[in-house]
């Protein structure tokens, strides 16, 4: 029989740097999760993405056991990292704040593929291009 799910908590925390301090402790502690165990597992699985904030969805069962999946960071976050930007443009049509190359767009699309509702690489690339446009980031070849 499937285990009874008690909660599904979503957290976005820096890759490889989870500690039992808030928010991990305060978000998962009340559900009876062993915080240190979660941190060790999260850090092992995300340490390679150092510098990014990684979304994780933690499923907690009635017996206090837990599983979690990590998602890829939002496209906007990946674009900002590649373009070395703090934030997108306030007026994306008029003010361009940065550029990324077509190859970088393709790499982001590849990273995001598992989480995007896209059947093809081409569709994923156009999604990423759309987000870049909405942030005032130009794509150059």
């Amino acid at each position, binding site marked *: 029989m499937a285990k009874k799910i008690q909660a599904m908590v*979503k957290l976005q925390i820096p890759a490889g740097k989870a500690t*039992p301090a*808030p928010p991990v402790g305060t978000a998962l502690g009340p559900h009876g999760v062993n915080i240190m*165990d979660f941190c060790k597992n999260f850090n092992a699985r995300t340490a390679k993405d150092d510098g990014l904030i990684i979304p994780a969805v933690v499923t907690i069962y009635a017996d206090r056991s837990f599983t979690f999946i990590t998602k890829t960071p939002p496209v906007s976050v990946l674009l900002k990292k590649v373009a070395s930007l703090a934030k997108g443009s306030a007026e994306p049509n008029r003010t361009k704040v940065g550029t990324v190359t077509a190859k970088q767009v393709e790499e982001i699309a590849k990273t995001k593929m598992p989480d995007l509702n896209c059947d093809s690489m081409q569709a994923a690339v156009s999604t990423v291009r759309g987000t870049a446009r909405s942030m005032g980031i130009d794509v150059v070849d």
Partner: protein
Amino acid sequence: MRTYPALDLRFPEAHREQDQLAETIEGAILDCPITALDQGDALAPPRLWRAYFPDSGTRDDAAATLARLCAGTGVTIDAVEVADEDWAARSQAGLGAVRAGRFVIAPPWAVPDRSAGTPRAGSVAQPATTLIVIQPSMGFGTGHHATTRLCCAALDAIDLRGARVLDVGTGSGVLAIAASRLGAVAVLGIDVDEDSMLAARASLALNPGADVTLAVMDVRQATLSPFDLVVANLTGALLIAATDALQRLSRHRLILSGFLSEEREDVIRAYAGWAIEREAQEDGWGVVTLAAGIR
């Protein structure tokens, strides 16, 4: 007690365009210099998000930005100071003693009663055990994680009498104490996390006689003379990132752990030139003991 500056965002219930609104606000929050975002339990509405900031200044700037965005949407924003509430200790309050090779690692409330385990006459003698007492708190290493047990066994497989040992990412200090109990002298435990240092200091008080010194230090910036053995229970990515430092700091042996089984190849490749002396896996985690000599 330390508190963490944060913003609470409460979404109105039954907002028609709530999902789209939530997505816009999420994007704006991720544009701010947040340290983390708690988006709550999806199974328990109403929706409450808590965004964490490095200090109250950046928090207050972000509050102003988000308030402009949320004007008229019904989403409320409140600045809060989140208390730690010591969940690290509370979530581990039910732990018992664990055996790891010759070691028994126990929280103070579950220290085994030695007189109770008297073997019956004629029975096979119990192997000698060494007790390590760890107060479960903010430092990694209570013996309940596979990598701690794997590292204890790896330490136990080496003659450490008189050896100088460095424990990188010491956490609760458990491996440094284990090395000292195995005869190592002047063991140094380092960690980048100050909370871990508090935990490690508490461990030294619970294990009198352990010859261990502690320091807050990033191994990549460490200027120390080399040790006979360096033990590092980190992550696969960190073991690879710290390859130069770890190799420089060890004269004879490295015990590496905290990597996932699927990361084993990458870790081994990063330490080409070292010979694999011993390795083990448990629960999808690995440990490897590397010996210098053929470099």
